[in-house]
């Protein structure tokens, strides 16, 4: 296949340390919520590449000898890197949009800055818009969790038992809202990062149709989140139990904080690949779902920007209905399909319920104030580091 590049041993010699550098920077960025926003953007750019590559692999272009690089070069808005995106320096193959309109010296400085910080700017832009969209959608649910938690302990302390249902009800209602939000958010976020358009996240009708018509790909997404967030929650609660060890007797506050910093650095080394994996999994699910939607309804006017451009260039044949001339089979298939879809949606809801339940259980095993409710580390910001108030500098 002409699109597959063979990598020489010399290139590996450069690629491996470069990958290690990107990984290390990513782990460091997972240590603070502000820098974790850049991890969201970086992962979004990786997701864009994953989606475009997945579409290219399924197109007749591959058979025609069109490489992935050639395919991407035809896309007017593609700022997608060829491999793992850079954190700071602009990827060399990406177009340089600067023109010498400010004089030669000004242009040189501008061009240097554009190259030196181009990826950083992309990561921040993608990260801020992506994280903000997810935050807005999950906030009603997560703020209800926070209220339920605070209210629950107040009811417990003040013995307001006649109001005890209030805390539980708020918590359950929050979980319901979270499940509903998460039926929508993964594909909507992926559309946003692929198109590079914020509005794509809020195409409610199309995004919902995409999720509803592809229930079979949404179930594995929910299950992957549920299984991997369990591992992340264990990482999150572990410090409390480790902290009861006699090993820490006599440690100063500074020494305890240093130990916790090292722990969270190690936890970040697990969190980063887990976060990237789950969202690349979502990207793959989105690629399948959008492709199915496009081939069934081409030219599919609801598609946006890069998404529309890329799919239009793939030369994909329209998908014929298997039962186009068989009305009885078509009706039967549609009825069975609805039943199966309903069952898949119910199972998907259970998967997201498990994700929410894991967060509640984790809070009961090691409580982290406020932010732990508002931020699920695999859904929003890949960040679990929380320094207890007693150890804060």
């Amino acid at each position: 296949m002409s699109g597959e590049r063979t990598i020489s041993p010399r290139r590996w010699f450069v690629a491996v340390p470069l990958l290690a550098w990107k990984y290390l920077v990513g782990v460091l960025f997972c240590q603070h919520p502000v820098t974790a926003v850049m991890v969201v953007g970086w992962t979004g750019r990786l997701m864009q590449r994953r989606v475009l590559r997945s579409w290219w692999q399924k197109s007749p272009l591959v058979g025609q000898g069109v490489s992935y690089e050639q395919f991407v070069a035809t896309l007017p808005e593609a700022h997608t890197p060829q491999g793992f995106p850079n954190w700071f320096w602009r990827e060399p193959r990406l177009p340089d949009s600067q023109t010498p309109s400010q004089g030669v010296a000004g242009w040189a400085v501008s061009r240097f800055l554009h190259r030196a910080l181009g990826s950083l700017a992309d990561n921040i832009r993608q990260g801020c818009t992506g994280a903000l969209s997810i935050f807005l959608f999950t906030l009603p649910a997560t703020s209800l969790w926070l209220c339920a938690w605070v209210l629950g302990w107040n009811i417990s302390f003040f013995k307001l038992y006649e109001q005890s249902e209030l805390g539980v009800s708020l918590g359950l209602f929050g979980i319901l809202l979270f499940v509903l939000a998460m039926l929508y958010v993964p594909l909507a976020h992926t559309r946003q990062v692929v198109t590079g358009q914020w509005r794509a996240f809020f195409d409610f009708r199309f995004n919902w149709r995409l999720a509803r018509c592809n229930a079979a790909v949404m179930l594995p997404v929910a299950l992957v989140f549920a299984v991997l967030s369990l591992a992340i929650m264990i990482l999150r609660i572990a410090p409390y139990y480790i902290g009861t060890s006699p090993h820490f007797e006599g440690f100063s506050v500074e020494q305890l904080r240093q130990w916790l910093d090292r722990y969270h650095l190690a936890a970040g080394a697990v969190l980063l690949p887990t976060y990237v994996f789950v969202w690349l999994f979502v990207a793959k699910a989105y690629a399948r779902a959008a492709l199915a939607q496009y081939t069934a309804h081409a030219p599919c006017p609801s598609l946006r920007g890069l998404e529309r451009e890329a799919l239009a260039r793939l030369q994909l044949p329209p998908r014929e209905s298997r039962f186009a001339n068989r009305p009885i089979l078509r009706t039967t298939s549609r009825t069975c399909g609805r039943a199966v879809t309903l069952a898949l949606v119910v199972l998907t809801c259970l998967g997201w319920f498990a994700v929410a339940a894991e967060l509640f259980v984790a809070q009961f095993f090691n409580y982290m104030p406020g932010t732990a409710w508002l931020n699920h580390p695999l859904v929003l910001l890949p960040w679990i580091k929380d320094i207890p108030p007693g150890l804060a500098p």
Partner: protein
Amino acid sequence: MESLDYRRATGTGQSPPIKVFWENWRQFYGDSGLVNPRGDRLLTKLSLRALKNLRPKLMMVNYNDCDYVHWGNMAHYTRGIAIMDAGIRKIVAAVEADEEYRDNTIFVIVPDCGQDDSKFAAVPCQHHFNTRSSREIFAVAFGAGIVRGRVIDRPTEQMQIAPTIGQLMGFATKHADGQVLEEVLA
């Protein structure tokens, strides 16, 4: 422990004075639980009422507002301590004001539990993970046979309270594992 409870073994349940005590309580506060004080204020109110009506020779108060902080609001812990402080002051004042109780009755006041000593807890009030410190509590003891004004500022075993009370009251505590806390005895 249930097998050792004589009330279960004999089927006698509460003694007549206790039954009268609760009947009077219900007559005053009703059955709803909405009128009477709650939490440790309730325990203080019950203690004062018991002092007045039951005339006990031993009173042990097990305050537990601090128990209910867990992972909640840290300010509740100090609030719980303040409620406990106010309760102890009222009980001591009631005892001092009553000639019959002064140097004649034993009072032991303890909180429900200690705290886990994890170094990495955001709210250090949890105590459900069976750490040693979750069983370390303070105790206030005063009354007949107890030395006045002495502070024992060293870790002692919680299970020393039962044999110490037995020693003070003059009954055997054969099921208690701890040793008598000698510094308490006058």
